[in-house]
């Protein structure tokens, strides 16, 4: 057989040369991480303020502000609108905000049936919208000072800290801002796991209306709970009001602030100084038991307490533990680190008053609390913790005077917080105003912070306290890249 090596060698040569050339010329497939991510100011914001608390004696003030100087805002505010309105929508000139820096309020006194209120911001007045609700009843049956921020309408909320023992009344307030009814499930966890409460399933919240559910109806006798609000259909705003009496004496009431959704590291800011129990409640939703390490961030640094530095939480159960023995009556922020996601909250007793705080996540950017009252007997302190690295923040105040359109920020202070420490800053209120909004904003390059405040008012019946962690202001959103891809439409 006559062989012809010429052709074979030629073919192999062609293949090798072509393969080499192709290897050199081959382009890298564009990696998916190249997707450009845009950040843009938000276009609208809706904050839902819960129903005012207890009795007819309680004075209620709902305040809103648009924190100025944020991206996306327009100096004249002419292509946006913001303000407060009742559901269904009623507005007045006083409840309208026209420019960034503008503030609004709705006040009611002696009214038992104030409708739900929403704070809205659209267009250039949407970024920086903050709203809060205050209730004050220094002498009546609901002797208390209560406040909470108005939450963004959403489909899931966590509240840790309610109870249903005798004398305690925890009620969950659900507000539906939309026109269609929302269907909500309440999942209640107790010390022994999820409580079978069929009455909490499939609750219908009518459109632009509210629904109030008492925890003692759903889970009677349970001392410590965590309430998960899940909207199956539609979206709601949720808040939990807690009030405890001892006999006929009110031993304090306040709103339980919304806790951060389950995560492995949770901070509990705003642990106030002074006497009284500091009852930390932790739940571990899911199938796994959690081992939670507790550290204390104080003004002089972070340390693990000698005891109570580790607690074990069974899956889906709530563990309550008094942290006051290890807190030295000092202001603090707790850092909880767990191997599985947890949700945390704290009930704080201060004399005959209670106040709540809840788990929060660190953030950079701005946070604010609106409607801080201006009284001589009132002391407001802000706890700013920099858990991870050094943080530099600016604290400024927006005073509100009825009839004045916009407020110039006053009393701007720059505060540097070393990493792992806490600053317990006292706010000097402006004078000649009705109330003010405090704003904390991290500077460029600053580390993340967690913020909460404590308001203490001296009263002849005893000191009144309130406060809550400050959620970061929604000013900007990350806009992901979208690509049309027909393959999505296949199962």
């Amino acid at each position, binding site marked *: *057989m*006559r*062989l*012809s*090596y010429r*052709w*074979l060698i030629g*073919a*192999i040569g*062609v*293949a090798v040369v*072509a*393969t080499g*050339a*192709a*290897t050199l*010329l*081959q*382009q890298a*497939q*564009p990696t*998916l*991480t190249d*997707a450009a991510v*845009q950040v*843009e*100011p*938000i*276009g*609208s*914001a*809706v904050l839902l303020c819960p129903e005012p608390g207890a009795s007819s004696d309680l004075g209620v003030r709902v305040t809103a502000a648009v924190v100025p100087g944020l991206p996306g805002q327009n100096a004249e505010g002419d292509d946006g609108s913001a303000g407060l309105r009742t559901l269904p929508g009623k507005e007045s000139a006083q409840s309208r905000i026209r420019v960034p820096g503008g503030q609004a309020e709705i006040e009611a006194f002696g009214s038992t049936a104030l409708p739900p209120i929403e704070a809205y911001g*659209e267009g250039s007045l*949407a970024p920086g919208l903050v709203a809060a609700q205050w209730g004050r009843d220094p002498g009546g049956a609901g002797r208390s000072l209560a406040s909470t921020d108005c939450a*963004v309408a*959403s*489909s*899931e909320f966590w509240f840790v800290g309610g109870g249903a023992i005798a004398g305690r009344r925890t009620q969950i307030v659900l507000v539906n801002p*939309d026109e*269609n009814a929302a269907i909500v499930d309440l999942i209640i966890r107790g010390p022994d796991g999820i409580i079978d409460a069929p009455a909490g399933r499939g609750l219908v919240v009518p459109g632009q209306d509210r629904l109030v559910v008492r925890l003692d109806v759903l889970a009677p006798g349970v001392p410590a709970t965590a309430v998960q609000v899940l*909207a*199956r*259909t*539609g*979206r709601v705003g949720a808040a939990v009001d807690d009030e405890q009496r001892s006999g006929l004496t009110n031993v304090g009431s306040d709103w339980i602030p919304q806790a951060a959704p389950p995560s492995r590291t949770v901070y509990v800011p705003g642990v106030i100084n002074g006497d009284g129990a500091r009852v930390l409640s932790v739940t571990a939703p899911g199938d796994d038991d959690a081992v939670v390490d507790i550290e204390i961030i104080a003004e002089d640094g972070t340390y693990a307490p000698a005891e109570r530095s580790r607690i074990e939480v069974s899956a889906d159960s709530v563990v309550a533990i008094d942290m006051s023995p290890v807190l030295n009556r000092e202001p603090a922020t707790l850092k909880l680190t767990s191997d599985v996601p947890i949700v945390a909250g704290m009930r704080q007793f201060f004399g005959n008053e209670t106040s709540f705080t809840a788990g929060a996540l660190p953030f950079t950017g701005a946070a604010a609390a609106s409607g801080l009252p201006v009284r001589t007997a009132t002391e407001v302190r802000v706890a700013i913790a920099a858990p991870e690295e050094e943080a530099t923040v600016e604290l400024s105040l927006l005073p509100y005077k009825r009839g004045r359109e916009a407020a110039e920020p006053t009393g701007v202070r720059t505060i540097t917080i070393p990493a792992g420490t806490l600053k317990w800053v006292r706010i000097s209120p402006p004078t000649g105003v009705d109330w003010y909004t405090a704003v904390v904003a991290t500077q460029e390059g600053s580390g993340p912070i967690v913020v909460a405040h404590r308001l203490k008012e001296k009263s002849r019946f005893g000191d009144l306290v309130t406060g809550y962690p400050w959620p970061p202001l929604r000013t900007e*959103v*990350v*806009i*992901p*890249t*979208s*690509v*049309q*891809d*027909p*393959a*999505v*439409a*296949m*199962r």
Partner: protein
Amino acid sequence: MTDDPWRDEDVRDDPWHDEAGPADDFPAEDLPNEGFPNPDVFDAESASDAVRAADEPVVLPSSLGTDEQITEWFSVEDGLSRDDGPEALPRRRHHVTTIVVAHEGDVWLPAVLTTLAHQTRPTDDVIGVDAGSHDGSLALLRDSLGEDRVVNSPENAGFGAGVAAGVALHDARVQQGGMGGAGDPGAPTSADDVVSWVWLLHDDSAPDVTCLSDLLTTADDHPSATVLGPKILGWHDRRLLLEAGVTISGSGRRVTGLERREHDQGQHDGARDVMAVSSAGMLVRRDVWDRLEGFDPTLPLFRDDLDFCWRAHRADERVFVATDAVIHHREASAHGRRADDLAPRPHRADREAAVHVLLAHAATWAAPFVALRLIVGSLARALVYLLGKDVVAARDEVSAVLALALHPSKVRSSRDLIRRTTTLPASVARHLRPSVRSQVRQVLEMVGGIATTSGSASDQASVSGLDSGPVGEDVDFLADDSSGLVRRLLTAPSFLLTVLLVVIAVIGTRGLWLGEGVLQGGALFPAPPGAGDLWQTYLSAWHDVGPGSTTPAPPYLAVVTAVAVLLLGKAPTAVTVILLLGIPLAGIAAYVTMRGLVPQKGIRFWAAAAYALLPAMTGAVASGRIGTTILAIALPFALRSLVRISAERGTYRRAAGTALLVAIVMSVSPGVWLLLVVGGVVAGGWLVLGPTRRRRAVLGRLAIGLLAPVVLLLPWSGYVLTHPSLILLEPGLNGGAITDPGLAPWHVLLLHPGGPGMTPVWISVGIVVAGLLALLRRDRLHITGGFAVLGALALAFGYLQLILLVTPPGATSEVRPWPGQATLVLGLALIAMAAVAVQGLRDRFVGTSFTLGQPVALLVAVGALLAPVLTAGWYATGLSTVMTKAPASPLPAFVAADSLSAQAPRSLIIASDAAGRVRYSLLNGEGPHLGDAETGPPAEVWETLDPYVSAMVSGRGGDEVEALAGYGVRYVVMAEGNSTDLVSTLDAEPGLRRLSSSDGEVLWRVSGVTTRARVASASGPAPVGIAAEGTRTADPYISQILPEGTGERALVAGVTADAGWRSDVVDAEGGVRSLPAATVSGLLDWSQAFPVPNGAPLVEVTYDGSARDRWLVLQLITLLVLVVMALPERVRSEADEDVDRPDAIDVDAAIVGEAP
């Protein structure tokens, strides 16, 4: 016996003759069918006399003792009939005048005259008529019959005139009294007891020696029969039955009642009444001939006999076929055998005569209807002839009818003749004409025969339109061999291959056969339920994809539709078969087409299995690439066809068939088509300029085969040329998920294109090495070299696909093409090279001393053999696949139902990916279907939509939800398995309301007006329904009375603005007026809009698809042209085929009556 054949003594000696009673008294039914032959004819020696006679010049009257002749089978039959037949009727005295009419017939005339002379019952007188021959016919007649028995007839007068001239000559000779010469002129001694006959013979009709005798015997047995004809057998094939009586169908067709190529075994024997007998051998009683005035002079050549017989029926005479009498007829005129100026185009003349006869015999009132039927029938037949590429016959059909219509006087004169000579209506012969039922049956049989390619109607024609298709001998395992069929099947390699590959394919795709749902995933969208839906997608100019699209539909949809039609219209079944059975089908295709290339079945078995189990095939099945499986099935046929038309003997017919195959290849893979074009250019150049020096016609054929598909697939092929990225891509979704980002060039060299369904890379090393080593064999280089060029082109193409990133039309991001089709072609080339080279290798090694080549060859062979085996194992144990069988709609049922309502809201389906990108799709109706991936709108449409989707999933709360509502989005669906962060963000997004979540799938409803079409006005939008509820067409798109209103309003159609949209408004008076297009500002500016008049107008919005329709007509015309070209040519074969030319007859056989 007497020596003188012209004497009547044998008749007079007939012992029964004198005892005969009046013949007409006997009813016909009682008459015996068989004549009673003269017992003296049996003499074996006369056969040798006949041989001698053939060698000598034919001289009549002959002195030979031809009375004593023998035919074996005659004797048998006669012996039988002698026992059965009644011996009742008297024999009469006959006087027969034979008239031989010749026209250019010197080829056949000697045989005719010889057989005439050898008649056992000699004719009493014979007259030769020459109709103006230019050859030796006249001389032959004169030599044989004598000068005085021959008369000249005008050249153009026709057969009837010739006979008339002959009869006149005969009469003249009788009147002159006894003529000199050898015979009595044959005047009857008494008009009372002698029956006079005229016997007509053509110059190409040779009667058997007993023909006349048998005819007269039949005449005696049936005394009322006045026109008799013999059974007509073939000239060359002497047992071929041509006619035993003939009739005419309503369409003018000559109906013999015989199967084509029927051999005479006595099955049609039996003297009987017939509609007509042929003029060849027609025996007519003289008085009837005279009374009917002979043949109609306006019918010069054809159907004159039929007309005459019909007139005989109408004159209350009986026409009989005497099947004992046999004549062998060449049918020279009818087959155009004659250099004939009477009928240069016999088909046309025949048709004209047929129409003429039917019209002449039609009753006056019926004539227009008959004429109409004939015209329509002629046109229909002309069309069929055109399909058979027989333009001449088609022209003949039409011109025959036209000629008659232009000369009505001819028919009129025929009608005069009929009126003059007959008394009865034409319907007297109705019972002898074919019934409507039998005609319908015959037509159906013919059609069925064409359809099944087997049947009497077209037994000759190989109806393999695509001459490369697996028909006929190719399908050897289908060979119907009744004995041992099962055993043969089980041992046939082709059958084993099929079974094996089917089993492997079914096992490998086992999860995808059963269960609810439609096959989908990877590149494949679910198929719509019916073939009609696919076809509609192909036909439509506007596609309801996204916000509407005018991208031309890909032609592979037509291929899938065709398969679906074969599978009872079920499109999902078609997709399942093409995709999941793609491996066995490709294997069969390779096995069948390699027949000529690789004769050894075992090697072919390996080659087909290796081809079918290439990684490209397993990958195509695993990732739903229906284009690649179609390519794998069609490519072997297309390649073989291209090779065939490159051969010297290639035809344009094959080139047209090739074009159809290449069109299938192009429709699923423009890239491989380009490969073939480049290869064709190379091959064409080499063939014409290289050592073989083929004629340039090769180039023409290759050009047709490779470039006609471009015309056929317009406008899509034009779209491909303007979007060259399609050349690197293939049908279906070209997403990044089903390609391998880490694919290296050497993977491609080892035939691995990457993606789902890949086997380990080393598996195909054996094939590659074997294919390369094939180049070592110099003696096969002329074949392997061609494949090597093809393989090199494929490799280059694969590398091109590898190094380029392309953006598919309508997509906004780049993807890497999948080099599967390139590796498929490369693999095919390597396998073919190896298979060609390995043949005969063992023989070469056997007996030679040990060399290094032997173990190397063994090693390579084992490696190559293992490749398909290992792949089969790998495949059967389950490859990773992205295919699923799932419900066709990705939407919850109520959303899908709502989407099909009149408001036709759309749905937005979103998913997040690992990089935080959001992928989305805008769904119309219940979801995407096969074809939507290719017919999507251009990328700009999505680029306007992208920001809204981005903003929505960011929870920004701007105008994005309103904008999406403007697109008609009513539902937002997040598929399961996505980031839960998106859920809370979307929950918080104003304008979206969560409806439900189950199994990880979350659904939101968009608030506000979310219909697709709406009336926009200052007071807000009002919903408008669309007309095509539940369907996806735009004809019409909207047809309804709009809401009452005034002021500036606009009808927003909810589809991307395009110049093709039309809107008509119908006012109160019923007038229709077109509306100009309007522009809407703001969020709806992308949409087509029209101004709305005041009041409540009735508006109809349609998409003008006439441009697409024109393209489709062009496609249809091109397809018809190619199909007609590719169809086998109409084979005009004569039943009685030539043995050789010229038509010399074996005179011995002619006389003895045996087959030569």
